[in-house]
């Protein structure tokens, strides 16, 4: 076998092995997307009920809660970025990080001090590489987040927002995550989580019946709101985590699918080149044999004379 042919054969073998791996990753990601989507759906009843309850209290109580009142001149804002622990997901993480950076720049432009909280190793690596301070980081659950994870994230954030601005508390909380639109589309979105705008919550609840019942609060409207709002924030963060996980798996699936396709193309090209090299080799061998016999025939014909 010629040297050229051997090189092609070796490359085909290695690309085939890569293709097998990417194909497997694609299929794993595809099954995880379905699972993650199911989790999003399973969490919906709780979120809807909670939203309805928040709307009910909001209309019943005269709201003066730290989580719903807007600061007159906000000086500090927190940004929570949801990235993933693992890469190989196309532009998933870079899109989310870019959206967070854009939001940070915008908030800083408005004269606010921005503290950043990050979920997921990829996002943390981005900030650490640039030696920028992070107020809080969480890792290890981005593939399959649980409600407990959302709680651990929410706790310090709520604490920070309840603290007075003068003592280092924040006035606003923004969240940047990747929304799962469909299998093909996932978009990085930013949303202001706190202070909560109760009008928007009401809109989200799909206010059909404008005349809501007059609730009896147990123990009191303020206490209910006190207990309800942190839960609402947690549930929003939980939903964002789940969407982000589903998006990540969808992005991985897509990235791995194109990797598999590319590997297939590469194998096709390489086998064509290998075939051409093999044929060239054969042609050369034939012409060598033909040339050899012709020379031999000439030599014997000459000696006869």
């Amino acid at each position, binding site marked *: 076998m010629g040297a050229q042919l051997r090189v092609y054969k070796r490359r085909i073998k290695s690309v085939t092995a890569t293709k097998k791996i990417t194909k497997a990753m694609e299929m794993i990601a595809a099954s995880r997307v379905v699972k993650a989507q199911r989790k999003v759906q399973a969490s919906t009843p709780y979120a809807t*009920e909670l939203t309805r309850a928040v709307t*009910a209290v909001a209309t*019943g109580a005269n709201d003066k809660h730290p989580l719903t009142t807007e600061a007159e001149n906000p000086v500090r804002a927190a940004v929570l970025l949801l990235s993933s622990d693992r890469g190989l997901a196309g532009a998933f993480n870079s899109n989310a990080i870019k959206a967070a950076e854009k939001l940070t720049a915008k908030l800083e432009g408005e004269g606010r001090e921005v503290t950043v909280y990050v979920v997921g190793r990829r996002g943390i690596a981005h900030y650490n590489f640039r030696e920028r301070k992070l107020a809080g980081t969480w890792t290890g659950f981005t593939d399959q987040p649980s409600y407990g994870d959302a709680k651990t994230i929410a706790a310090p954030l709520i604490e920070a927002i309840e603290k007075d601005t003068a003592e280092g508390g924040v006035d606003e909380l923004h969240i940047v995550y990747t929304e799962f639109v469909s299998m093909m589309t996932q978009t990085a979105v930013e949303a202001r989580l706190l202070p909560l705008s109760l009008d928007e919550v009401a809109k989200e609840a799909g206010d059909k019946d404008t005349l809501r019942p007059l*609730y009896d609060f147990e123990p009191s409207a303020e206490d209910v709101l006190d207990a309800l709002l942190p839960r609402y924030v947690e549930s929003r963060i*939980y939903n964002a985590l789940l969407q982000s996980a589903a998006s990540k798996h969808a992005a991985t699936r897509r990235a791995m699918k194109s990797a598999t396709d590319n590997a297939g193309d590469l194998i096709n090209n390489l086998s064509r080149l290998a075939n051409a090299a093999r044929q060239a080799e054969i042609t050369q061998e034939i012409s060598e044999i033909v040339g050899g016999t012709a020379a031999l025939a000439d030599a014997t014909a000459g000696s006869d004379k």
Partner: protein
Amino acid sequence: MAAELHVELVAADRSVWSGEATLVIARTTSGDIGVMPGHQPLLGVLESGPVTIRTSEGATVVAAVHGGFISFADDKLSLLAEICELADEIDAQRAERALERAKSDSDAAAERRADVRLRAVAVR
């Protein structure tokens, strides 16, 4: 037939139970409360503890609820809890072991969780 109320028992990550009932008893921060059809609209904060639902078929469903809310309007009652299990799903022996472990580790939260589970099983 007596009037019924529709109950939705939902945990943060799943819907636990839903169906028609004639009476729901839950413990709010200001005491036990029983809700029957036609009750006035209510929104309350739940204590950790067992919730008893008497279904319209006469059966009794007991669930352990770890914090959460009760909301009732228009004969629709929803019980929201971060963690919520039906008594049938609870492994009593495991809960007992967890309770003892929590006591020896003096882990108050775990102790409370195990205690709530055991109380729910006891009610059943």
